Every structure is written in C-alpha cells, then in structure tokens.
C-alpha cells in the first residue's frame, strides 16, 4: 500500500469515481470525479489535532460499526493517502457558532471548507478493472439469528475483533458482555451454494456459487484462536470443506490436529438465552445421522462473496459482460481469463469471481502483463475483418447498432450508422442483421459466401450438406474431430465465418433454393461465444427461418442449429452422422418443391417467439430427434436450449395454441 503512495509512476486518486468513458483500445478518455476531502491531502501530516477536537461521533465503517470515528477522520491508521478528510454529511460546519474547531486546531492550516469536487480528464491506453467484491448480509437467514442476537457475528466482524488494529486491540470479546468467548462456533456457506428458488427469491438467502475463500478463512480463524487461547473450544459446521489450494490441506489438517471439531451439517436453528447471551445451535450431524444441540458463547457466520454494486456501473461504462452470477465475464474462460471482451480492458481480482489474496495478486499481475503487451506497442494493428457501412445503401434504421455486442456502431435517428473500427471485433452480426445490404464485412463479404455456396452446390447438391461453422468453436470442434480421427460420413461442406452471427438468413434461404438438402448453422455454446453475445442473434434468426420455412411448406428440420465447442470433436462427428440421416431423407422432388416454394419469397427475419414480452409455457421441439417437452420459455432468460434426449442445441420453441 505504501509503495503505491510513493511510486513516481503512480498517480493515486483516492476518494474518486469514474464518471464517463469514451474512446477505444489504446485511446480511452476517462472522466474522473475527485471528491472534495476538505483537507488538503498533500499538506496534511496526519497529526490528529483535528480529530481530538471534533465533537461528532459516528459508527466507524472500517471497524464495521464496532467502534466510532469522528466527522473528520482517517479510515484507518495505515491509510494511503495518509490524510484526513471531513465527512460533510456529519460535519457541523465551519460557522464559529456551530463548530469549526478542527480548522482552528490545525497548525498546518490544511483544512479547506471551500474545497470543491474536481473533474479530471485522463487519457489512457489500457484499463484494468479491479473493483472488488462485497460480502453477503446474513440478516435474511433468520434461523441463524444474526439480526436478533448480539453474539452472532459475521466473519468480517470477527476479523476486526481479532485484529490488533481492531476496536479491542486484538483481544477477542463477544459483543453482549465483552467477555472472552470460550466456546465458538463457525457456520460455513452462509450466503453461498444456495440455489435460487421460490424459497430464495432474488437470492436473498444466498447465491448458487461457492464463494471460494470462506472455508480457508475459517480454518485460518480457528488456528488464530488456538494460537491466542489454546483452551478455546471450536466447532465448525460445514457442507464440504474445500481446501484445494497449495498448502491449504496442511492448514486444515493442522486445525483438526489442534482439536477443532468439524461437523458436517449446517444449523437449522439458533436460540439465545436472554439472561446469559449464550447460544444454542441445533444441527443435523449428517455423518452420524443425529440431531445435535451445541452450546456457544459466540457464533461466527462465514459469509460469502457477492458482486459489488460499483462494478455494475463500471461494467456499463466499458460495455463489459457479466456471467449469470453477476461477476464480470472474461473474453474466454480458459484461454483469455484476464481479458475483458472489450479490447484494451482487463479484469483482476474479485470483480471477476470470488478469490483469495494470492489468486487476486496472481490475476492482477497477469492483467498488468496483458495490458503491457498493448502499452509497449507504439501502434496496434486491427485485423482487416471489420464492418464497413455503405452510406448510400444505409436506410438509417439502426438495427446494426442494436445487435452489435461491442457498441462499436454509432447510430442516431436519421443518421447513417458509423462503425468505430477499433472497437469492431468483426463478428459480422450487424451485416447479417442489415436487410439493406448496407454493411460489408471485410474479408467475409456476402459475395465471398455466395461464391462458396455456389461452388459447393454446383454439382449434385443433394449429395452435399452445407455447414456454416464459426471460426472459434464449431470450426475448431471439427478440427478436433480430425486430430482425434473421429470418422464420419463425407458429405458435409463447411463455410467458415468468424461467428455464427455472421450467417445472414438469406444465405440459408439461398442454399435451400439451390438444392441443399440440409443446412447446418453452428457456433459456440452460449458461455463460450467469442463475441460476447453475437450468437444470440443467430438463435433469433434461426427461429425466424424455421417459422418462415414452415410457412412455405418446407420442412424446417432441414435447417439445423447446434453449438459445438473447440473441444467437442466427438460431438461434431455425432452431428455429422445425424445430419447424414436427415440428408438421405430428402428426395429430388422435395428439393425441387423447395426451390419453387422459396424463390421470390421474402426471407423471414422476425420470429413470433421473440415478440414475447413475458415468460410463457411452450412446447420445446428438438429439431434433430423430434423429442417434444413442455417448458416455460423466457425470452429474457438468455439460456441455451438443449434437447434432454439427444443433447442437440437446435431446439424450436412452439408457442402453445399456435395451430
């Protein structure tokens, strides 16, 4: 911390917030609001004369309300910058009648009640988002009695109570009578590993994920306690102890060897004797199968990690993505774990997922190294696969800007769409969305794709299955099938696009007209999409095509959709075998009928499924094996569809009563 404060290359802007961001990789312009401290930080010597005279008391946030601070304060003694600030929501003001005592007491005269917030403009090439985490508030879990009993505390409160810098200078006492607790219980997974359900609306009772740090934090706490007072009786209630990291199992074993009891089972109820403040936890010990009651002086709730609210603001400013749990999403979960999907932005620490100090440091160093690759190059080259708008053809509808996952297209009503080339990643979903052919994807033009379709279907089209495969996953999955030597029928012909989102509905329509018996559109699984969410557009377009084909009397099953990851060579071979069966069922007469039916018809772009505003009961229909099942379809849920029978991802949503 101190090193940051005195490093010549670091400009520390504490008590400051990001207000606005513009620009793109290598050239971001960031607006920062530096909030007024009312103390000139550079002048303040942290002598503390001001604090001594301040009459206002307030719960101390750093000590989680277990101590008090003044209106003029320093967050904690080792704070960086080492300077006081005035909390203007509490301060009585500079009026001599009201107060103004601190200003009089300050020898350095560095208190300035007229200080204003400062707006600072920064130009930077790279951004590292390290906005951190928050901790779960266990109040809704009433069975633990956190809101009712003084002697039930969170693991964060425990940290302050056992810390030498804490309110009790490290002498652990319990809140009700300030006596040393001799029987201490820990409850694990508080707010973690709890499925969202009707019993857990909005996740108030906890989140589904494992918070990663709480098991080891409790193991550590138990060792600290044994170190301070070996006679302390410690019991830990857990679901599973996850001691997976380097040296973790050793610590866990040490804790057990020191006599800490680990009981598998979480308390279902906690009661408190109002006279003594002593607690009793009732728990089903799932190892012995018995209901047990345990008496404690202090119960510590090992609270989980939750995403921080501020991360959401930063996420929106930089158009980053988040995973279902609310943490930031990486560009790729395995291969680019510290890159954000937005170029030039990197992620470190708990903003990405719950993690401990070591993992945060590791990830931070990785993010710094990734950022340095960018900062060390005088210029960056952008692969020439970006979108180009033809202003003469653009009808200014703005659809392209809506579907762009990178906000790389600027559009205002009545204006021609403009592509920010540096922000464009080249997925091509804008070009597929444009019905006016006003967008050209450099190096993946419509002309090139049509030429490939023509070439593939030139001779005996009924013999050939036309497959669109995205560069990153399904094309790579087909490569994996090759390197693994998985054999499959030789009738598929691939067209590579950067993303399945590039597949314009017209391509599919044209191929079927040209006699293709079966067309496959394939891409990455939802979680793997290399263009954030561009393959969601693929689903929307395929849904529309299925409806449109059916309307023209063409079997919609002849258009297949599937997701295949780069590792799923086995799945690719399976898809190929299944498609061959579909191909063999298409007769020359059917192909001729298709040609006649589709010629001159408008290519459908909108599906009734996506007009739904609310979740609705629907029949899900597997377009591969034909299995049907009932399910609630929620257009906002962003969930990958999958057939429970054959695991195909090409599943059609049939709204009940559509006939």
């Amino acid at each position, binding site marked *: 911390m101190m090193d940051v404060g005195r490093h010549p290359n670091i400009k520390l802007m504490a008590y400051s917030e990001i207000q606005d961001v513009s620009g793109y990789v290598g050239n971001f312009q960031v607006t920062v609001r530096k909030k007024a401290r009312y103390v000139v930080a550079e002048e303040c010597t942290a002598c503390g004369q001001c604090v001594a005279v301040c009459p206002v008391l307030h719960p101390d946030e750093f000590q989680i309300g277990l101590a008090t601070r003044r209106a003029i304060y320093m967050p904690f003694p080792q704070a960086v*910058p080492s300077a006081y600030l005035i909390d203007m929501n509490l301060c009585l003001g500079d009026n001599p009648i009201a107060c103004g005592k601190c200003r009089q007491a300050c020898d350095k005269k560095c208190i300035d009640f007229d200080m204003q917030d400062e707006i600072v403009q920064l130009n930077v090439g790279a951004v590292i988002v390290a906005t951190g985490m928050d901790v779960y508030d266990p109040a809704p879990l009433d069975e633990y009695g956190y809101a009712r009993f003084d002697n039930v505390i969170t693991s964060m409160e425990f940290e302050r109570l056992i810390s030498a810098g804490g309110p009790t200078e490290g002498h652990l006492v319990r809140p009700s009578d300030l006596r040393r607790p001799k029987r201490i219980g820990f409850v694990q997974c508080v707010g973690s590993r709890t499925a969202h359900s009707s019993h857990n609306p909005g996740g108030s009772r906890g989140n589904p994920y494992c918070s990663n740090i709480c098991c080891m934090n409790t193991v550590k706490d138990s060792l600290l306690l044994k170190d301070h007072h070996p006679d302390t009786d410690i019991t830990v209630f857990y679901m599973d102890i996850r001691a997976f990291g380097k040296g973790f199992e050793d610590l866990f074993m040490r804790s057990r060897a020191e006599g800490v009891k680990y009981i598998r089972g979480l308390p279902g109820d906690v009661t408190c004797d109002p006279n003594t403040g002593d607690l009793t936890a009732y728990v089903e010990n799932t190892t012995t199968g018995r209901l047990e009651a345990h008496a404690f002086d202090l119960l510590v709730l090992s609270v989980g990690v939750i995403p921080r609210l501020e991360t959401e603001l930063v996420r929106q400013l930089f158009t980053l993505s988040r995973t279902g749990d609310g943490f930031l999403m990486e560009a790729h979960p395995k291969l680019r774990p510290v890159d954000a999907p937005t170029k030039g932005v990197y992620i470190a620490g708990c903003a990405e997922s719950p993690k401990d100090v070591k993992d945060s440091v590791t990830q931070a160093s990785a993010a710094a190294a990734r950022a340095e690759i960018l900062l060390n190059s005088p210029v960056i080259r952008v692969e*020439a696969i970006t979108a180009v708008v033809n202003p003469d053809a653009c009808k200014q509808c703005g659809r392209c800007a809506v579907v762009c996952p990178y906000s790389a297209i600027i559009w205002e009503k009545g204006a021609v769409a403009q592509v920010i080339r540096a922000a464009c990643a080249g997925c091509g979903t804008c070009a597929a969305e444009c019905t006016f052919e006003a967008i050209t994807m450099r190096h993946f033009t419509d002309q*090139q794709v049509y030429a490939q379709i023509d*070439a593939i279907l030139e001779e005996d089209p009924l013999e050939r299955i036309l497959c669109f495969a995205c560069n990153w996953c399904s094309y790579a999955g087909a490569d994996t099938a090759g390197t693994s030597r998985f054999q499959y029928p030789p009738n598929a012909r691939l067209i590579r696009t950067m993303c399945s989102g590039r597949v314009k509905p017209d391509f599919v329509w044209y191929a079927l007209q040209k006699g293709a018996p079966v067309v496959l559109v394939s891409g990455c699984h939802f979680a793997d999409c290399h263009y954030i969410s561009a393959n969601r557009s693929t689903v929307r377009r395929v849904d529309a095509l299925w409806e449109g084909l059916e309307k023209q009397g063409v079997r919609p099953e002849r258009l297949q959709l599937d997701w295949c990851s780069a590792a799923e060579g086995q799945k690719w071979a399976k898809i190929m075998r299944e498609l061959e069966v579909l191909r063999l069922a298409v007769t020359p007469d059917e192909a001729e009928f298709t040609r006649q039916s589709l010629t001159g018809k408008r290519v459908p772009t909108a599906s009734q499924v996506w007009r739904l505003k609310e979740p609705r009961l629907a029949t899900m229909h597997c377009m591969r094996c034909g299995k049907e099942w009932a399910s609630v379809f929620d257009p906002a849920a962003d969930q990958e569809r999958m057939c429970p029978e054959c695991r195909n991802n090409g599943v059609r949503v049939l709204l009940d009563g559509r006939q």
Partner: protein
Amino acid sequence: MEQPRIGVFVCDCGTNIAGSVDTEAVRAYAETLPDVVAAVRNRYTCADPGQQEIKRVIAAERLNRVVVASCSPRLHEPTFRNCVQEAGLNKYLFEMANIREHCSWVHVQDSEGGTRKAKDIVRAAVARARWLYPQDEEQLPVTDAALVIGGGVAGIQAALDLADAGHQVYLVEKEPSIGGIMAQLDKTYPTMDCSI
C-alpha cells in the same frame, strides 16, 4: 478488379493427406477450375521447400491469389500469409482449403468420398479466392498510460507491476484510502501473516 490468377498448392502432408485422399487427382482437378493458372502438389507445403515453391510460382506465373489445400487455417494460415506477403502479395489474398482435419483424417477408410470432398473444398476455396481483395490493416496509436479502477489488493498489485515496468498509472479508488477488503482482514492464509 484485375483478372484473378490463382495458384493452388495441394499438400500431401506426408501420408496425412495423401494416405487417404488422392492428392494428384485433386491437383489435376484444381487445374480445371476457373482462373486457376497453376496447380502444384507438395509433400510438405508448410516446410521451407514448400514455401519456396509457392514464392517461385507466384513470381513465375504472376499469381495474384494463392490457395493452399492442406491443414486447418487455425494452424498454418499465419505461416502462409507471411509466405505470400514475402513474395509481394497482400496477405488477405491468401485462402486455405482444409483437406486434412476436415477431410483426410475423418474419412480414412473412404478414399473415394474423401477425394471427392477434397475437390469440393478446393473448388469452394478457389471460388472464394476469386472474390478476395487486398486489405489494409488499420494502425492506431497507443497512449502509454493505464487506468486501474479499484485500489484493493488486485488493483494495487496491477498498478505496481505496470508502474515498475515504467508505465504511467492512474489508480482510482472510490474510498478515501486504498486497501479494500484486504485491509480489514487480520491475518491472511496460507501464510498467516498480516494483511496490510
């Protein structure tokens, strides 16, 4: 657009491709495709002699498009792009036909079907190559400064690493002090030492 003059280079890849695909038949077929002015078969196209051959034919036949029928572009597209660039062609005028991962390796027992598929793959690649255009990669300047948002342990470490490497760093923290959650912890595992 100038008239395309396409060269097709069919790779045996030792026996990896030639073992199940009749590469000579594919080469002969490629010669018959529109705008193809040269079709050459190589034992290992990615090796130095193979690349030299591409460069030689580009010069001798004044090729302005190159198709290599070999492995996955995910493997060797950068190799061949460099190769054509060294011969003076824009690297976007290169196209790859994947007749190994997508063909010879997955139709090992079906030489006839595999060879027919390989011809199709080459035909589609040549068709695409006819519509390739030279592209300029845009170059953008980079501001040598970084913004780190958040002064917890991750932000501190990232800022220090970047600063130690000589870059200007702006570390923005919402709270009055850096330190984040870590500063509130007493000791941290696995070392059991002080957090601050």
